[in-house]
C-alpha cells in the first residue's frame, strides 16, 4: 500500500514536471491574442472593473481568467479602458501582457495531466500502465494550444476530469454517502458553469443509480441522495450567477444587452433578484444564438466543421500566423494524429464490443466492460447531442469526447492485453512503449503549430498529411 502511494507520488511528480514544459512554460507566448481570447479577455476585464455584461458562456471560466489577471496584474500601467466598452477587443494595446489572463487556463491544462493519470489508475489499478497512458493527454497538441490561451476549455476539462475521478471512486465503492453525491453535484456544476456542453457528464448519475440498486438500497434513499446532489448542483449554479451579477453592477456606454426599461431601472436600483437575473441571462443566450451562423462549407475560409468528421481531425483552424521572408509562424488547432487515432480506434472497438454484448450476447469481463460501456455511452451521447445543434461548431468542441475516447483507449488496451500486461509480456510492453514514443515524436513533429514556431513551406507541407485536415500554408 505504502509502496503504491510512493509510486503514485513519483509518477505524478514526473508527469507534472513534463507537463510544466509541455503546457506551462512560456504560456504567455505569443503576446498576441488568438481565436476567442478577444472575447474572454473583454469579459474578464469587465469583472475586474465591475462593468455589466452578458455573454453566452456561463460565468465561471471567465471569472477564473479574471482571477489570473487579478493575481498577476501585469497590465496595471496599460490603458485598457476600451476593453470595458466592447465584447470583442479588436486591437490590444502594444504593451498588453497575456501572462495574467492565460495563467489559470495554463495552470488547469497542466494539472489535468495528473488528473487524467489518476483516473486511469482508479480504472485499471495499474500505476505504470496508467502513467504511460496519460501521455496521450500530455502530448496532444490541440489540447495544449487551447490550454495556453485565455480560453475556457482547459478549465472546463479540469472540472470534468475531477468529476470523472470522483465518479470512478464512487462507482468502485460499495457504500455511497450523501457527501459523495454532494461532491459530485458540486463538481459537475462547476464544469457546467464553465461551458454548458459539460452537461453531458450528468449521465454519470445513471451508473451510480444502477449501482445503488445492485447494492439493494431503498428507492427513497436513492432519491434522497440524488435530490441532495441536485441541490448542491443548483446552489453552485446560483452562487456563481450571484457572483457574476455582483461583480457587474455598472452599465457603461448604454450597453444593456437586451434589458428592457423596467429591468434597467430595477438593475440600477439594485432591485433585481437572482432568479430574474438568471432569466435575463438565458434570454440573452437565446437571442445571441439566433445570431450565430450555421455551418456553411461553401463559405470562404469557413472554420466550422461537421460533427461526424471531428474524429478524423477535420477541420483544423489556423488561429494566427505571421510571415517573415520565407518562413511563417503558425498557431494552429491541430491535434496529435496518433493520439486522435488511438481515440478513434478505441471508439470503434468499444462500439463493436458494446453492440456485440447486447446483440450477440458476447461474453465479457464484467467489471472492465462496465467502464467501457459507460464511457462509450458518454461518447456517443455527446456526439448525438451536438449533432442536434444547428449553429456552426468547431473542432475543439470535440475535446470532451476526445477525453472519453482516450480513457476508452486505455480501457481497451487493458481489456485486450490483460494477460500480457500482468505477465510482463516483452512484445506487448515493447509495443506499448514504442506507441508512447510515437505519441511523443508526433507531438514534437507538430509542435511548430502548437508553440508558434517558424516553418518554411517545405516544413509545412511535410506536416500536411491529409487533405481532410484542411491545413493551409501561408506562403
Amino acid at each position, binding site marked *: 500500500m505504502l509502496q503504491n502511494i510512493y509510486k503514485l507520488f513519483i509518477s505524478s511528480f514526473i508527469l507534472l514536471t513534463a507537463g510544466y514544459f509541455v503546457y506551462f512554460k512560456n504560456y504567455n507566448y505569443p503576446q498576441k491574442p488568438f481565436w476567442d481570447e478577444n472575447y474572454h479577455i473583454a469579459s474578464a476585464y469587465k469583472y475586474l472593473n465591475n462593468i455589466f455584461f452578458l455573454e453566452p458562456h456561463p460565468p465561471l471560466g471567465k471569472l477564473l481568467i479574471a482571477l489570473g489577471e487579478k493575481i498577476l496584474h501585469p497590465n496595471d500601467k496599460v490603458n485598457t479602458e476600451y476593453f470595458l466598452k466592447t465584447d470583442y477587443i479588436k486591437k490590444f494595446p502594444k504593451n498588453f501582457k497575456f501572462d495574467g489572463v492565460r495563467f489559470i487556463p495554463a495552470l488547469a491544462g497542466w494539472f489535468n495531466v495528473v488528473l487524467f493519470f489518476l483516473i486511469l489508475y482508479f480504472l485499471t489499478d495499474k500505476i505504470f500502465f496508467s502513467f504511460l497512458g496519460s501521455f496521450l493527454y500530455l502530448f496532444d497538441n490541440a489540447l495544449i494550444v487551447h490550454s495556453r490561451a485565455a480560453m475556457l476549455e482547459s478549465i472546463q476539462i479540469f472540472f470534468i476530469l475531477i468529476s470523472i475521478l470522483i465518479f470512478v471512486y464512487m462507482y468502485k465503492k460499495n457504500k455511497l454517502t450523501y457527501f459523495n453525491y454532494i461532491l459530485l453535484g458540486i463538481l459537475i456544476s462547476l464544469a457546467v458553469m464553465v461551458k454548458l456542453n459539460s452537461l453531458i457528464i450528468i449521465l454519470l448519475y445513471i451508473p451510480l443509480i444502477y449501482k445503488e440498486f445492485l447494492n439493494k438500497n431503498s428507492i427513497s434513499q436513492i432519491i434522497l441522495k440524488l435530490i441532495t446532489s441536485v441541490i448542491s448542483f443548483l446552489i453552485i449554479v446560483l452562487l456563481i450567477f450571484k457572483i457574476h451579477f455582483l461583480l457587474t453592477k455598472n452599465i457603461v456606454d448604454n450597453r444593456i444587452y437586451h434589458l428592457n426599461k423596467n429591468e434597467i431601472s430595477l438593475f440600477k436600483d439594485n432591485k433585481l433578484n437572482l432568479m430574474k437575473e438568471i432569466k435575463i441571462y438565458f434570454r440573452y443566450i437565446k437571442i445571441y444564438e439566433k445570431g450565430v451562423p450555421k455551418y456553411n462549407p461553401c463559405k*470562404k475560409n469557413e472554420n466550422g466543421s461537421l460533427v461526424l468528421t471531428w474524429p478524423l481531425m477535420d477541420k483544423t483552424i489556423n488561429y494566427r500566423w505571421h510571415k517573415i521572408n520565407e518562413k511563417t509562424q503558425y498557431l494552429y488547432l491541430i491535434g496529435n*494524429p*496518433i493520439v486522435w*487515432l488511438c481515440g478513434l480506434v478505441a471508439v470503434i472497438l468499444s462500439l463493436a464490443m458494446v453492440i456485440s454484448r447486447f446483440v450477440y450476447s458476447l461474453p465479457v469481463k464484467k467489471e472492465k466492460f462496465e467502464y467501457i460501456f459507460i464511457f462509450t455511452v458518454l461518447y456517443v451521447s455527446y456526439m448525438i447531442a451536438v449533432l442536434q445543434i444547428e449553429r456552426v461548431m468547431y473542432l475543439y468542441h470535440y475535446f470532451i469526447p476526445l477525453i472519453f475516447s482516450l480513457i476508452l483507449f486505455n480501457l481497451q488496451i487493458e481489456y*485486450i*492485453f490483460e494477460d*500480457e500486461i500482468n505477465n510482463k*509480456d*516483452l*512484445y*506487448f*510492453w*515493447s*509495443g*506499448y512503449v*514504442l*506507441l508512447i514514443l*510515437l505519441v511523443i*515524436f*508526433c507531438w514534437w*513533429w507538430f509542435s511548430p503549430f502548437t508553440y508558434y514556431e517558424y516553418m518554411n*513551406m*517545405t516544413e509545412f*507541407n*511535410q*506536416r*500536411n*498529411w491529409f*487533405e481532410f485536415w484542411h491545413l*493551409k*500554408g501561408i*506562403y
Partner: protein
Amino acid sequence: MKGKIFLIIVILLWAGVLYKSGFLSPKPKFPLKVKIVQARSSLKVLDEPYKIKRSKIIKIDKLYFPERNYLYHYLYGNLKFYKNFLMFIETEFEMLKSQKITFYINSDDGFRLKIDGKKVCEYIKDRPFGKTVCDITLKKGLHKMSLKYFQGYGKLGLVGIYEINGKKYYIGENSKYIKFYENN
C-alpha cells in the same frame, strides 16, 4: 501472440508516420517549383510582353490547379491571383526506361510545355478550360520539364497529367515509370 501482433501494428504505425513526414520517402515530396508572376498589364497571348507587379514561388506535389475564379491549390488554398498572371513551372524527372509518354494539359488560358528545352506542345491563346494532348518518346534517364502558363481574365485553371502504358498520373506524382526530383 497478441503481444506480437500489437508490436507489429505499432512498428507499422511508426513506419507510416515516418513515411508521411518524409523521413522514409526516398523521393522529394514537392518536386514542382512554381513561380507565379502578376503582370502589370493585361495578357491576351502566352508570349505577350509584360512588366512584373509581384511574384511568388511555391512548391507543390502535383500539377493540379482546378478550374476556379481564382488560383487555387489544395496545399495553399486561395493563392490570390485572379487575372493577368503567368506561372513558370519547373521540375526534373527520371525515366526509368525509354518509352512513349502522353501529356494531357488542361488549361484556361494557354500554356507551353517543354522537355529538355524542346517544345512538346502548346496553346498560346486564351481559351475556356480545355485539353491539349501530346505524345513524346523519352529516353531512359534524367530530363528537365518546364511549363509556361498564362491567365488573362475570367475563370482559370491548370491541370497536368501524364499517361504511360494506359495509366494516368498527375505531373509531379511518381509512378513505376517516372521519378520526379525536387527542383531547387
